[in-house]
Every structure is written in structure tokens, then in C-alpha cells.
């Protein structure tokens, strides 16, 4: 059922400058399924833009293999470079829309001319191009600004024009490289919801590059985390949020900072002073809630007192995800047993101070 629309195999991108070489992307393999919203997160400089620019070959890799929508765009696995022919690439690029942080509209052309520019080489007649451009502007809610110049629009409106332009040739993939990063929160949400709508209605595959986890949280199905040119973790959104393996991922997801912040606050307020028989743990659970009886059970069966100090719940992909910060008190042996029991209940247990996930 699921079909790969983007296949990146061992992609490396190296920039050679006068006195240094920068390995912006190192041996990255990434498959993206048709119809997915795939988030790629990481700090600035991680190599996200360089990696996604390989998808439409705005950036030619140094080695690896890139197959997009069934077409081989690039291959160099044995020192022989095979690159898709320029004319063909031009046509294929029209099926891969891209939006940017700074919109990159043509400033000297009106909103509707910007969309028409994308249709310049389509097989449509002049009249059809004009009406298609208007339809696209309707789709993004900007038909009444068709004759305005980009500088007369707000950032959110400009990005919507950019989306209309990117969709002009009915692409199957839309890449957003920090497409919401220059927008205020309200516009960010509008654009993200528009992308989600396009994904639902047109079956558009969306590649969402961002350094803002909130964007990914709102619409992504799957997530990859990048650091220093490498993908360090991939998974579906829920997994990444509830069960991240990597410290950086947790940092991004916010569990790291939320928990350490919670603990620091409590410590500072002298509300928590962990004795030898106490520890602070985070319980993350999906779907159902941690029932009170569980806390009672910990006391009755394991002689462990659990004290809830902080709780939080979020909705991810329509599923509630809860986090509880709990101080457990009891002997080392009993605490171990209690934690083992919690994990058997499909609860993810994280020791807060060290930020380590218990394995078991």
C-alpha cells in the first residue's frame, strides 16, 4: 500500500571552499512515503536545507543515489556520476513544489503574474493559464489580491502566494524549507493547516523542514532528526515524542527541557529535596490516562509512595499524550520493581535527573 516517493540512499554533500571542506550531509538515507507529511528537524546548520535541496537537485550531491517519484535523479555509488538530463530535470522539477523561509516571490510581478510564471511552459493556453492561476489563488484565499505586488502583502499572504505558485503544475511533492519560520504564530498555524489540507485533499506529499518542533507536532506523520549532517533518529510522530532514543531528540521534543525545567523549578522552591530513597521520574503514556489506582497499587504492592508534582497533556496526530512527573519514595529494590511494573503497563519511564530512558 505504502509507496516510496522519495528515496535518498547514502547521500553525501561536501562543499569545498578555499581552505576547508564542509561535510554538510553525511551518508544520509531517507525514504518518504507518498501522502506523508514528513518533518525534518534539527538546529540551524544541521544540513536540513542541503539535504532537501537534493530532492529537486537544486543541490547536486557528492555521492549517493536519489530517486524521486520513480525517476533516477542522481547516482554516484562507484565514482561514476549519473545525473538526470537538464531538460528532463526541468520538467520533473515542476512536479516538486518548494516554498522557502523568505517566500522568494518575484517582486516586480504581481501576485497573479507570480503564479502564471510557474505555468509559462505548461501546455495550457494563455486563457487557461490565467484562469488556473486565479483558481490557485482562490485555493489559498487570495483571489482578491491578484493584482497586488508581493511587497503590498503580509508575510503570511506572501507565503500563500508562494504555495499557490508551487502548486501550479500539480506537483506530487511539496517541500517547505522553513516555510513558517519567518511568520508570526497565527500565520504559522494558518500555513501549517493549509499544508495539512492540501495533504488531505490532493494527497500531496509534504516535506517539512523546520527548527520549530511545534510545526512538526501540528501536522507531521513522521519525523527525522538531523545533527551535524546526519540523521540521528527517525520515527513516527508519536514515537518521537514519547519514546525518543536520542538526547537531542528529547531536547527538541521538549521533554528534556520540560522535565529538567520542572525539576529545577521545584528544587529552587525547595519543594523537592531528593533523599537517598527518592527519585524523580517522568511517566509518558499514550491514549489512556494514568489512573489513580495505579498510584495506589504502587503503594500497596510495592511499598512505593508516588507523589505527582507536575503533569501535562498534548494531542499528537489526534491522540492524547500525557506526561507526569512523579517523585517515588521507597527502597532501591522496591522502586526497581515498581518501575518494571509501570513499564508493563505500556508507560514510558524516564529518570528525570539524568534524562535516561530505562531499558527493559
Amino acid at each position, binding site marked *: 500500500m505504502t509507496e516510496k516517493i522519495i528515496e535518498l540512499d547514502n547521500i553525501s554533500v561536501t562543499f569545498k571552499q578555499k581552505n576547508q571542506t564542509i561535510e554538510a550531509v553525511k551518508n544520509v538515507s531517507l525514504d518518504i512515503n507518498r501522502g506523508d507529511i514528513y518533518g525534518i528537524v534539527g538546529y540551524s546548520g544541521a544540513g536540513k536545507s542541503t539535504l532537501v535541496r537534493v530532492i529537486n537537485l537544486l543541490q547536486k550531491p557528492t555521492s549517493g543515489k536519489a530517486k524521486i517519484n520513480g525517476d533516477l535523479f542522481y547516482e554516484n555509488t562507484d565514482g561514476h556520476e549519473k545525473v538526470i538530463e537538464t531538460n528532463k530535470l526541468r520538467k520533473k522539477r515542476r512536479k516538486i513544489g518548494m516554498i522557502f523561509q523568505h517566500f522568494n516571490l518575484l517582486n*516586480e510581478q504581481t501576485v497573479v503574474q507570480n503564479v502564471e*510564471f510557474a505555468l509559462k511552459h505548461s501546455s495550457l493556453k494563455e486563457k487557461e493559464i490565467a484562469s488556473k492561476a486565479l483558481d490557485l489563488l482562490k485555493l489559498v484565499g487570495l483571489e482578491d489580491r491578484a493584482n497586488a505586488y508581493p511587497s503590498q502583502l503580509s508575510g503570511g499572504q506572501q507565503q500563500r502566494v508562494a504555495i499557490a*505558485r508551487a502548486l501550479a503544475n500539480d506537483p506530487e511533492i511539496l517541500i517547505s524549507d522553513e516555510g513558517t519560520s519567518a511568520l508570526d504564530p497565527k500565520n504559522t498555524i494558518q500555513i501549517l493547516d493549509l499544508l495539512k489540507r492540501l495533504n488531505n485533499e490532493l494527497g500531496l506529499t509534504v516535506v517539512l523542514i523546520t527548527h520549530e518542533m511545534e510545526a512538526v507536532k501540528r501536522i507531521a506523520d513522521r519525523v527525522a532528526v538531523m545533527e551535524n549532517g546526519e540523521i540521528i533518529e527517525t520515527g513516527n510522530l508519536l514515537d518521537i515524542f514519547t519514546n525518543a532514543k536520542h538526547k537531542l531528540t528529547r531536547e527538541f521534543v521538549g521533554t528534556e527541557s520540560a522535565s529538567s525545567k520542572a525539576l529545577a523549578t521545584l528544587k529552587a522552591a525547595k519543594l523537592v529535596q531528593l533523599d537517598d530513597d527518592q527519585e524523580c521520574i517522568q511517566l509518558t503514556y499514550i491514549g489512556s490516562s494514568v489512573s489513580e489506582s495505579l498510584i495506589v497499587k504502587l503503594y500497596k504492592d510495592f511499598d512505593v509512595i508516588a507523589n505527582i508534582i507536575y503533569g501535562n497533556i498534548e494531542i499528537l496526530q489526534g491522540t492524547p499524550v500525557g506526561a507526569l512527573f512523579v517523585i517515588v519514595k521507597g527502597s532501591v529494590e522496591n522502586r526497581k520493581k515498581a518501575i518494571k511494573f509501570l513499564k508493563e503497563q505500556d508507560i514510558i519511564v524516564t529518570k528525570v535527573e539524568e534524562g535516561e530512558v530505562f531499558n527493559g
Partner: protein
Amino acid sequence: MAELFAKYFPNVVYQGWNGDGGWLPAIGQTLYMTFWSAIFGGILGLVFGIGLVLTDSDGILPNRGTFSFFDKVVSFFRAIPFIILLAFIAPVTQKIVGTQIGTTAALVPLSLGVFPFYARQVQVALASVDHGIIEAAQSLGATFSDIVFDVYLREARSELIRVTTVTLISLIGLTAMAGAIGAGGLGNMAIAYGYNRFANDTTFVATLLVLIFVLLVQLIGDFLARVLNHKNI
């Protein structure tokens, strides 16, 4: 009125409207030289300016050899003082125009004198186009000519008008020197008939006419640059 003018500007009146040394031919020669060398030098400058931007290392057709060729030619011609270029280029002028002196002959050194200046200005104007816009166009499958005409030239049009204005004004300055090879014009009027004959009034009026010409070019250029700019209103 006319009597008063004749009293204070006797030499101006002496030159007369028409004929050898007349005002109308002088004005005509300046306009002629400015117009045609702007066309020839302008085309040459545009080609070199566009070539420089496209073949630069971050351009859309990076090619070190071609870039370096454009760059060297432009630098070479820019380095030659115009008054020396007039003489230096004379054999070439002879080949192209058939004579080394006169107004039409002056078009060759004028075009060659103004094009490197214009090429550099065009280069700077085009380089001011945001690279992101070019990438966006490429991501839409734009062709080479789309990028040159719809992106580079159109996006930079206001900036191009501005540098064209500057270039035209300096070209008017160069035409004044072309008198040295018998090209006539207002510059020649100011020197040959004014300065050399101690006719200060002639120099004054010739200068005034050049100033009016420069001012008009500036006003029209500023107006167009403003009207054609939608970047940041």
C-alpha cells in the same frame, strides 16, 4: 530682450544657429554621440555584465574561464584613460568607420570607453537580485532565458535604470572630450570656440546646455527607477 542678450553674449550670437560652429549642429552632435554610443556601449555593457553574473562561481552557469575572460576585458578597457583610448583605438576606428575623425568616428572610442563602466554597473545591479528568487524560479522548472529575462533583468530593472542614468551622465562627459578628434559637440564648443578664443560667454552657454541635458537625463532616470520599483514601497 534679444538686444540685451546680444549685448551681454556677443560671442554666443556670433556663433549663430546653423553652419560651421553653429549652436544647432553642436547640440545635434552631442545628442548623436550620446545616443548611438549609449546604444552600442549599452548593448556591449549589458552582454558583459550579464555574462559576468551568470558565469561567476555562484551564478547559474559557473565557468571560471569565461568569467575570467569577461572580467579581464572589462578591467583592461576600464584602465585606459578615455583621452588616450581615443588615440589608441584610432586604427580600429579607421577599419570600422573608414575615418579616424569626425562625429561618427567618435562613436567607436565612446562605445568602448563607456561599456566597461556600464558592464560593472550592470554586474552590481544584477548581483543585487536575491539568490533565493533565482532558486525559487529554478525549483519551478524555469529555463535559462526565463531566469535571465524574467528574473535577473526584470527584478533588477529599477536598479538597471539607476545605473543606466549614471552611465549616460558620464557618457555625456566623455562626448565633451571627443572634440579632440574633431567630433564637435557642446564640449568642443566650450573649448574650441569659447575657452581658446577668450569667449567666456560661449563657454558659459555651452556648459549651461550640457547641464540642462544632464539634468533631464537624471530627472527621467529617477522617475522611471521609482515607477518601476515594487520591491519596498
